[in-house]
């Protein structure tokens, strides 16, 4: 990331303007040619520095009112296999291995499960219980109660 990439990021990280001449408008703000801006953004997209360009829906507003962070205690030597199996389920949006904090926190596998109701989420959780079988030494569901902050990445301006 050089200085120009950084300027592009700080100019676009809170969102794109809703104007017809979109890239021209941003380029003008940065005092560069629109072609250079597009070239840099394409490069960042290709390298994965930009995951995607698009809309982030508020899943509550779309009716996905039940959102559980499911956390599972599985053997460390099985976690890659089990994590990949969980991640492949269509209703799991994020799946990670994270560190335990014994004895406070025994869980090492995290999977976000979304549904339109708690009932729907419970049914999906049962599928995970079946999938993990006796490899699972315990699990909990942490339902979200409210979003306290959601701004995404914010680089400081240079």
């Amino acid at each position, binding site marked *: 990331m050089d200085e120009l990439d950084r300027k592009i990021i700080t100019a676009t990280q809170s969102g794109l303007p809703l104007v017809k001449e979109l890239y021209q408008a941003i380029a003008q703000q940065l005092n560069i040619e629109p072609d250079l801006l597009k070239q840099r953004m394409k490069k960042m997209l290709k390298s994965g520095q930009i*995951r995607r360009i*698009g809309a*982030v829906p508020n899943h509550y507003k779309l009716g996905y009112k039940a959102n559980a962070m499911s956390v599972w205690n599985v053997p460390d030597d099985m976690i890659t296999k089990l994590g990949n199996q969980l991640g492949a389920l269509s209703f799991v949006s994020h799946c990670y291995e994270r560190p335990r904090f014994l004895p406070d926190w025994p869980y090492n596998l995290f999977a976000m499960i979304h549904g339109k109701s708690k009932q729907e989420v419970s049914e999906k959780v049962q599928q995970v219980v079946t999938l993990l079988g006796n490899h699972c030494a315990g699990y909990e569901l942490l339902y979200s109660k409210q979003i306290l*902050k959601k701004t995404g990445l914010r*680089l400081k301006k240079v």
Partner: protein
Amino acid sequence: MDDLDRQIINTLQGNFPIEDHPYQIIAEQLGMSEDDLLTRLGILLEDKTLIRFGPMYDIQKLGGSFSLCAIRVPSERFEEVTRIVNSFLEVAHNYERDHEFNMWYVLATESLAQIDITNQAIAKKTGLKVYNMPKLQEFFVGLHFEA
């Protein structure tokens, strides 16, 4: 929100063009006018159906770090601790969850060192223990929400 709004949301979760007149390109795919698309997109952002619209940067690929962190906040201090935690620019998301571990926030920082520095500052200001749970392995990220 009507069917056309739903189509806009579903289409825009995919790839937005890095070309001249990108909204025109999307509007044509949806069989609507560019003006109508821009108006509707503005309303969807205004009424918070969309949280944001733009590039999603991967801070790790940009040399920075992400971490999920948790705090067990006593219920009578929840508002105060929320204010403290949210005041850090490095806190990208923060959720209240229905559990003894009731506050879960994501740090996005420009270096790995800043994760620990920020968490130490949060622990000091709140007087509470911070559990730093960075991902050790990623198995899957991404779900297409059907509107």
